């Protein structure tokens, strides 16, 4: 995988890419005895292969146009621009941008949780890496920025809408990855847009935000998947409607999951906010610029806000259904806390989330240099308040690798590689002024204040005498665990607004008559794109295949007839070309 990041030859890139994809398959199917796991793994493999073929064409065309497999900045040749679409499709499948995400939910849900963490944290980022890398190296078509941003906004909104409607918490996290990729794509789209509008400074801002979000998402999503993994390990179910009240048995997991949830929703003072904030700044600048790009940036900003609010609902639901309230089933009531070996990595990841949130300036130099390397500029100085404080990260990049390699290192950092970053020597990028240091102080202050106020209130409450009693529940005499809001009912209100795309499948039996039978209400959200588009298409393909296979019926006479028919067909082809 690291190979993917470091090669500078198209052929080697493809090799590394595909080997990495195939490894992904074997990781997903580690638990290969279950049919669902195998299906999910195969779906992953198949879509991934489709993406690789796109990339094969991409690199093939690149090689045809440039005459070799060597990669490098080629921004001069405008005829290469249409290739961007191929790269977008190929890398987009890996990244899981919305209509191409079909493999992602089931793969993430069925893989072992640490693998899900790795995939969500790193694997799908390879797609992002590809898009960033090649949009930086190649000229892009004029519409690229618009399309990428539109795709990103769609991914963000629909990804989180699907996440909200899920009952399987790992699927929820997977769809949330679709959302986060969408957020990253919004940032990248902003950068592309800025480039096509004369290299506006806000583009870099959006790109820096996107890259930082790559990093952040890696940290908090891994944390959440680890948390999900320990819940799965403890209770044996992925259905949130069968859980509840786990905080009592697994306080560590609950706390860390809550932390991850705050981070993923993008709330201050954690890291998710910092990157979203940067992307917002880019978008707001774009809108305030009143250029044509504002027409895209404006809806993108609003959709980003919508997605953020939905994410809040989603993770409030996830946290509440899994950890809060009363246990809904026996297995949830008998859960046990994960061991130290599971807790350790979670603590480390939580530390990263906290650290990146409170001291965002740590990564700033790497981000600016990456954004700069993406598009070197001739003029403009780095006007960054936070730059001066980042002296912890001052080792050097190998200079021979050139500026092009820097984005790789930025992503390299996301997976815990101890690369150290330093702004590359080649050209200081013009970055809009960003009070990142101030933001850091605000976040730090906020965290401090929260800790202080929380402690204070707790002490006050203890001093005032804390009593325990049953939940009041408006005086209802016999509250039961089954009366709690379930995952479906929690999401019902908001996901109803998206039923046009979610297309939930309902089974309902109402209470009827004087001696009613048991009433039932079930709702399941399908994989809409997969179930309603891809599978029907696949069924059609299988029909064609079945029809063609019927030709191989075993009757020799017909086989000889086929030979004669082929002869006639080829002869008529030749005739057609030779008769004027």
């Amino acid at each position: 995988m690291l190979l993917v990041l470091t090669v500078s030859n198209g052929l080697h890139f493809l090799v590394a890419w595909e080997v990495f994809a195939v490894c992904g398959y074997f990781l997903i199917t580690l638990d290969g005895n279950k049919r669902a796991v195998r299906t999910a793994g195969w779906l992953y493999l198949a879509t991934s292969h489709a993406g690789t073929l796109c990339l094969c064409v991409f690199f093939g065309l690149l090689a045809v146009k440039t005459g070799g497999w060597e990669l490098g900045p080629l921004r001069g040749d405008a005829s290469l621009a249409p290739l961007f679409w191929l790269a977008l499709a190929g890398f987009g499948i890996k990244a899981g941008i919305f209509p191409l995400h079909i493999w992602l939910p089931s793969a993430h849900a069925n893989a072992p949780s640490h693998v899900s963490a790795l995939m969500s944290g790193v694997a799908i980022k390879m797609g992002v890496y590809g898009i960033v890398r090649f949009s930086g190296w190649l000229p892009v078509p004029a519409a690229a920025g618009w399309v990428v941003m539109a795709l990103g906004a769609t991914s963000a909104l629909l990804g989180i809408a699907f996440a909200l409607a899920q009952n399987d918490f790992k699927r929820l996290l997977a769809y949330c990855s679709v959302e986060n990729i969408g957020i990253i794509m919004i940032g990248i789209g902003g950068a592309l847009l800025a480039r096509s509008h004369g290299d506006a400074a806000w583009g870099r801002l959006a790109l820096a935000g996107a890259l930082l979000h790559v990093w952040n998402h890696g940290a908090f999503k891994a944390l959440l998947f680890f948390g999900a993994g320990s819940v799965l390990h403890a209770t044996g179910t992925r259905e949130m409607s069968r859980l509840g009240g786990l905080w009592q048995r697994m306080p560590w997991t609950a706390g860390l999951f809550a932390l991850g949830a705050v981070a993923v929703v993008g709330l201050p003072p954690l890291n998710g906010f910092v990157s979203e904030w940067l992307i917002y700044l880019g978008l707001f600048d774009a809108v305030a610029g009143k250029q044509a790009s504002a027409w895209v940036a404006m809806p993108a900003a609003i959709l980003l806000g919508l997605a953020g609010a939905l994410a809040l609902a989603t993770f409030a639901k996830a946290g509440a259904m899994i950890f809060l309230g009363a246990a809904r089933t026996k297995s949830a009531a008998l859960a046990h806390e994960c061991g130290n070996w599971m807790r350790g990595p979670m603590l480390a990841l939580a530390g990263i989330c906290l650290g990146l949130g409170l001291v965002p300036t740590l990564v700033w130099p790497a981000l600016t240099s990456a954004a700069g390397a993406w598009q070197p500029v001739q003029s403009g100085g780095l006007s960054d308040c936070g730059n001066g404080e980042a002296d912890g990260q001052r080792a050097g990049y190998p200079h021979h690798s050139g500026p092009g390699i820097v984005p790789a290192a930025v992503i390299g950092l996301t997976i815990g590689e101890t690369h150290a970053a330093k702004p590359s020597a080649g050209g200081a990028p013009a970055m809009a002024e960003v009070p990142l240091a101030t933001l850091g102080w605000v976040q730090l202050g906020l965290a401090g204040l929260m800790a202080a106020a929380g402690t204070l209130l707790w002490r006050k409450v203890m001093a005032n005498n804390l009593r325990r009693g049953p939940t009041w529940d408006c005086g209802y005499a016999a509250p039961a665990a089954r009366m709690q809001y379930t995952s479906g009912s929690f999401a019902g209100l908001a996901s109803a607004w998206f039923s046009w795309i979610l297309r939930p499948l309902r089974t309902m039996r109402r209470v009827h008559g004087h001696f009613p039978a048991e009433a039932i209400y079930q709702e399941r959200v399908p994989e809409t794109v997969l179930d309603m588009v891809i599978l029907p298409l696949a069924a059609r393909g299988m029909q064609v295949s079945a029809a063609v296979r019927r030709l191989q019926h075993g009757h020799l006479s017909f086989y000889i007839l086929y030979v004669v028919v082929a002869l006639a067909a080829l002869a008529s082809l030749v005739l057609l070309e030779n008769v004027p």
Partner: protein
Amino acid sequence: MTSLLLILVPSIAAALAAAWPDSRTRPWFLPGAGVIHCVLAWWLFCAPPTVEAGSWLGFDPLARAVLPVVSLLFLVCACYGVTYLRIRSERPNRIFITALLAVLGLLSAGLQARHLGLLWIFTEAVTLAAVPLLHFNGTPRAFEATWKYLLVGGTGIALSLLGSLCLGYASLYGGGDGQLTFMALMAQGGGLSRPWVLIAWVLLLVGYGTKMGLAPMHTCKPDAYGEAPVMVGAMLAGGVTSVAFTAILRVRAVVGAAGAGGVADHTLLAIGLFSILVAALFLLGTRDFKRMLAYSSVEHMGILTLGAALGRAGVAAALFHVWSNSLTKGALFLSAGNIRRAAGSQTMDAVRGMSVLTPRSAAIFVTGIFAVTACPPFGPFFSELKVLRAALETGHWAITAMFLGCLLLAFFGLSRVAFGIVDGRPHPAAKAGGTRFVETAGVIVPPLVLLALSLWLGLFTPRMVTEAWAAAVTQLYPN
């Protein structure tokens, strides 16, 4: 002279094997002849002899670009065959071994044939020599497969004879002196009668295409590959098809010289793409993993044909693909044979969980499937990428898109079947079967070697091999 030895050694070995009294030691003729043949072939490969322009037989650049890999494939299959025949000691092996050795000799002859008639004779002879190989198992199914192979193949062969005669008549009509060597025909070039050349081309393409197994003439292929012993399948898929392909290449060169190259390329393109498409559709639904390999072979024959239609770069890529496909397909056939033997069945419905029963063969099989579906870093990936690049260079956008779409479908089909038989829990019946198949070195090492060779070909394509392909292209496109 050494090039004649390539034909003589297997022929003599075949004669000796036929006369050898002991059926337990007779299989050793296979690797014996294989080793000598392989050494000779690679010696000639490294030090290519000069071939006289008018000679009827010779180790010319095209033979040099194909023969070594066929020889290598035979050697590995022969080694596998020793173990295989020991397992199948209940079947008489005299005719089988004789025929297999004869096939090797005739393949060497067919690849080296530089004369229109001679080429046809050897290709036909290979077809006939393969017949005893197909019904080795002696089951009704095997006879049925043989019957179909013989009649469909025979029809193709008849058409290619008619085509050869037409090409000869084209030369005669154009004032040729009856020298029907390819060099002479190419030298005659525009002097050949165009209508006759075109008629000949269509007939020869269909005829040799039947031997290659291009759709829709592929119909006997799944039956034959499905019922024959696996190393025979490997030799058919890697060896016989190569002879037919070189035959098409040689004829294409003549047609090109006669000024009808464009038409020829269009027909090649059409039938190549059609083969890929049909094979992909078959692969999507097939449930028998040995027949699946046959369809995959149809697909790869389509890729070869496609490459042949794409000019110099395409032909070089296609020759590369001959190598990578032969080696990879060989590994697949041999490992599939192990699985077949261990599971006692060859359909997906009855075979499951082979990663438990035959872990090593299953691993080789799955790796082979990845290799043959053009996953790097194996040979087929690089050769197909070269075909792709050739297609892109010549600006065939729609064809590239179709080609890739079909590759994707083929991947779906192949991976579906492969994982279907490898994963899951084994059938209780297969587990409890009386004589358990043991994965000895004799049945594991050969496919592994082939897979390693495919990997080696992909990662470190030797300069000398690349040069051999380039030389063959120069022979086919002299100007």
